[in-house]
C-alpha cells in the first residue's frame, strides 16, 4: 500500500497585519496577516524546518531513498537545493535528490513523482516552500505569504493511502516570471479563471472521479490549491461539490504560500481527518492534478506537535510595513561603515560540511566531552584524535548569556548574540532569532534553527542559529 507516511509544516514566526499595507497606501485591506520570512529565512531554510517537523532530528532520518524540493523561488537558479537539504538532514550520500520548480504545481509534481517511487519500495521526502515576492501596493502583496510543508511517501506504515491521480497539462499564460526577473506577473483574473483555472481543475477532478467510479458524496474533504477563496468557490459548483467539504484556506491567517499551499492544506486536512476518509486533492498550474487519498487507521500516530494550531499561536505580529519592505529587499539603504563581507571559503566549507549543514560536532571517546565545533584535540583531557561524531540537532539547550549588538552590521539591528549551552555538554555561539529583546533571559530554553548566515558573490552560506523553544 503506497501513500503518505508522515507530514510536517512550517510557517515563519513573524506576521504582518494586512492593515499596515492599507495604511501605507491609503486603501482598505482584508483582515488577517501574512506570514513573513525573516531576513535570514528563505525557501530552503523553511523547507528544512518543515522537514524536521516531518521526520524529526534523531541522527540520520529514517531510511530515505530520495529528497525532493519544490519551489518557484529557489535560492539558486542553478545549484540544487534538494542535495543541500539532504546534507542538512544527514541523509546525503547514496540517495536520489531532485528539485521541482517553475510552477505553482511543483509541490504536487514532486509528490506524484515520490508516489511513483514509493511503488518501488522507496521512501521519499518531499519539501515544498515558497517566498514569492510581490510588487508593492499590489493585490498579490496582500494575499501572498511565506511557508513550507514536508511529506514523506512510501509503502510502509502508511497513514493515508494513495488511490489514484489524474493529470492534465496545458501551456497557459496566467501567471509567469521570466528567469531574469524577480516579480511574478498576473494576467486578467477573469481570463485566468474562465479559460484556465476552472476548466483545467474541473477536467482533472472529473477524470479522476470517473476513472475511480466515485461520487461527490463519498468525498470527506476537498483540498484545493486556490490563490483566493473566489478561485476555490469557482470550482465547487461545476465539479458538483458542496462548499462545506472544502478544506479551509490559510490565506487569512498566513497568506497564499505558493507551491507550499496545497501541501499545507493537505497537512491541515490530515490533522483533522478520520480513518476511512476519502480526500480529494486538486492542484493547478499549466494544467491540474487531481489526487485521491484514503485515510488509514494510524493517521494520528505521527506528528511533531507542530500543526496548524501551533503556528497560529507561535507568532509575533508587531512588525510594520517598512520592516517588511526591508526584509524583502525592496528598499535601498546606505551601506554600513564596516569592512565588506568576503565570501565563505568553499573548500573549507565543504571540509566542514558536517558541522555547517548538519550541526555535527565531536565527542571525546576518552572523557566524553562534546565539542562544537568539532576538534581534533580534546579541550578537557587533551587526548589527540580520540573523537567520534556527535550530533547537536534536537538536543535541549539553554541560553547561557547574551548581548544586543548594535554595532555589527545587521539586516535587522540589533543582532541578538547568544551563547547556547546544550544538555549533556557543548556550547555554541550564535544568534537568537524570532525573539523580542524583552523576552531574552539567561536560562531560557532555546532550540536550533537552520538559517541563511549571509550571501556574497552569489554564494549563500547557511548554518545554524537558535530560536526560543517552547516544547
Amino acid at each position, binding site marked *: 500500500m503506497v501513500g503518505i507516511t508522515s507530514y510536517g509544516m512550517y510557517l515563519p514566526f513573524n506576521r504582518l497585519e494586512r492593515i499596515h499595507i492599507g495604511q501605507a497606501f491609503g486603501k482598505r485591506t482584508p483582515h488577517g496577516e501574512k506570514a513573513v520570512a525573516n531576513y535570514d529565512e528563505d525557501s530552503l531554510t523553511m523547507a528544512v524546518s518543515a522537514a524536521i517537523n516531518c521526520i524529526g532530528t534523531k541522527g540520520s532520518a529514517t531510511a530515505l531513498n530520495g529528497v525532493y524540493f519544490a519551489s518557484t523561488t529557489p535560492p539558486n537558479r542553478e545549484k540544487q537545493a534538494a542535495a543541500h537539504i539532504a546534507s542538512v538532514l544527514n541523509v546525503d550520500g547514496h540517495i536520489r535528490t531532485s528539485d521541482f520548480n517553475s510552477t505553482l504545481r511543483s509541490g504536487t509534481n514532486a509528490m506524484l513523482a515520490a508516489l511513483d517511487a514509493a511503488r518501488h519500495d522507496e521512501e521519499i521526502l518531499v519539501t515544498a516552500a515558497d517566498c514569492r515576492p510581490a510588487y508593492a501596493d499590489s493585490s498579490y502583496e496582500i494575499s501572498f505569504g511565506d511557508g513550507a510543508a514536508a511529506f514523506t511517501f512510501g509503502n510502509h506504515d502508511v497513514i493515508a493511502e494513495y488511490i489514484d491521480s489524474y493529470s492534465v497539462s496545458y501551456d497557459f499564460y496566467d501567471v509567469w516570471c521570466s528567469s531574469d526577473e524577480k516579480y511574478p506577473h498576473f494576467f486578467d483574473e477573469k481570463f485566468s479563471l474562465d479559460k484556465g483555472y476552472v476548466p483545467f481543475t474541473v477536467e482533472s477532478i472529473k477524470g479522476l472521479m470517473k476513472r475511480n467510479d466515485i461520487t461527490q458524496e463519498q468525498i470527506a474533504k476537498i483540498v484545493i490549491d486556490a490563490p483566493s477563496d473566489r478561485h476555490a468557490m469557482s470550482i465547487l459548483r461545476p465539479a458538483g461539490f458542496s462548499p462545506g467539504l472544502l478544506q479551509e484556506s490559510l490565506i487569512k491567517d498566513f497568506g497564499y504560500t505558493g507551491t507550499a499551499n496545497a501541501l499545507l492544506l493537505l497537512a491541515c486536512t490530515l490533522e483533522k481527518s478520520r480513518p476511512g476518509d476519502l480526500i480529494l486533492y486538486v492542484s493547478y498550474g499549466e494544467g491540474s492534478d487531481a489526487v485521491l487519498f484514503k485515510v488509514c487507521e494510524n493517521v494520528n500516530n505521527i506528528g511533531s506537535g507542530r500543526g496548524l494550531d501551533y503556528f497560529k499561536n507561535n507568532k509575533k505580529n508587531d512588525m510594520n510595513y517598512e520592516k517588511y519592505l526591508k526584509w524583502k529587499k525592496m528598499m535601498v539603504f546606505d551601506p554600513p561603515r564596516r569592512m565588506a563581507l568576503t565570501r565563505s571559503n568553499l573548500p573549507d566549507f565543504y571540509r566542514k560540511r558536517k558541522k555547517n549543514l548538519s550541526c555535527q560536532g565531536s565527542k571525546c571517546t576518552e572523557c566524553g566531552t562534546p565539542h562544537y565545533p568539532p576538534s581534533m584535540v580534546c579541550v578537557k583531557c587533551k587526548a589527540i584524535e580520540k573523537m567520534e561524531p556527535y550530533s547537536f540537532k534536537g538536543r535541549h539547550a539553554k541560553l547561557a548569556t547574551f*548581548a544586543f549588538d548594535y554595532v555589527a552590521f545587521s539586516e535587522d539591528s540589533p543582532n541578538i548574540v547568544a551563547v547556547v549551552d546544550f544538555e549533556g555538554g557543548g556550547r555554541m555561539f550564535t544568534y537568537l532569532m524570532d525573539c523580542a529583546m524583552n523576552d531574552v533571559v539567561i536560562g531560557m530554553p532555546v532550540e536550533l534553527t537552520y538559517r541563511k548566515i549571509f550571501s556574497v558573490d552569489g554564494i549563500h*552560506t547557511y548554518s545554524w542559529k537558535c530560536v526560543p523553544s517552547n516544547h
Partner: protein
Amino acid sequence: MNHGLKDRVAVVGMGCTKFGDRYEASKEDLILEAVKECLEDANLALEDIDAYWFGTFNSEISGVGLSQYLKTENKPVTRIENYCCTGSDAFRNACFAVASGVYDVVMAIGMEKLKDSGFSGLNWWIPDGDKTEPEIAAPSVFSVLAPAYAKKYGLGFDELREVLVKISEKNHYNGSLNPKAMFQKAMTPEQIKKSPMAAAPYLTVMDCSGVSDGCACAIIMRTDAALKHRQDPMYVKGVNSVAASGYCKLNIDYDFTSIIETANCAEQLYRQVGIKDPIKELSLAEVHDCFTITELVLYEDLGFSKRGQGWKDLLEGKFSIGGKLPVNIDGGLKSFGHPIGASGIRMIYESWLQFHGKAGKRQLDDPRLGLAHNLGGMPYMGITAITIVGKDLG
C-alpha cells in the same frame, strides 16, 4: 618550566605619541614621533639598536613594515601580532632577546593606524574560512560578561549600570589629566548614560575604548648594561602570557564572570615575581579596559578584589586616583585610546613616567611597582599578557 625574567633586563628609554584621530600623521610620522622621543630619552642613536620587535595588529605586515621607515640596515625586525596583546608581546620578546645574551640593545615598538578606514568601531579581520561563525562586534563580544556577572552576584540591572558608568567616569577623568590622551574631557554620569547603545543593555558608546592611531616604544638592555648607561632604568620584574585553549568557548561550565586566562596568567606571574598582595604591593595598574565591564571583571581576575566584590571596591573609590590602587591612572584604553599594537607598550610607558616623576597632574607620591595587563581576542577565548616593572632592583 617558565623561569621568569626577574630583574634580568631593564628599560632605558621610552617614547609615546599622542593617541587619537591622527589624520595628519602617516604610519611613518607616528613611528618617528615615538622613536625620536625614545632615542632622546635613552640618549642613544638608531645605530645602537641591535634588533627590533615591531607590534602591529593590521597596519603593516612583516618587519619590513618598520625597517622601511627607520631605514635600518643589516638589522633583524620581527613583526608581532597577537590580537590586542600585540604591544605586550613585542615587549616580551624583545626582553627575551637581550636576556638570552644574543643581543645587547633592542627596541620594542608598537604602532597602529586605525582611523583612516573610516569604519565605525574596530573591524576585526576575519581569517579565511567557512564564515559560519557569527560576526560579533567587539562591544558585544565583551558585553556577554555583564548579564552573567549581574546574575551571579545578584546585581540588578541599574546597579550594574551604575558601576559601569562609574568606571567610565573614572577613566574619562583620568584622561583629562593626560596631554597625550585621545579624549581629555571629564564626563558626568548623566552624559555617559545618555550616549547611544553599542551592546545593549549594558554598554553604551561611552563604555567602549576609543579606536585610535598611535605608536609607543621602549629600548631594553640587560640590567648590568642598563645600569652602566643610566642610574635610573626601569627593571622588568616579569612578563607572562597565556593563550586560551578555547575551553571557555566550548564548555558549559564556564560561567562568563571572569577571564580565566588572565586569572591564570596573573597567578603565575605574581608567584614568579613574589607578589602576595597585589593591591598593597602595586603602586599602579594599567589594565585592558577595552570595555567597562572588562575592567570590572579584571579587578577580580588580577587579584585586586575578591570574587564578586570588584564592583563594591570600585564604588568605594579603591581604584580611583587617591585610592588604594589607581587603575588606569593615565585614562586607560577608554580615554588614552586603543591603537592596538601600541597599547601594551603605552601601559608600560605610564609606569616609566611615574617612576621618573614625569606624570604631571597624575603623579603619584612614591610609585615603586607597576603592572601592565593586556588582553587580546575574546574574554572566553583570548590571550593575556601581563608585565610588571619596578623602580628598584630586588
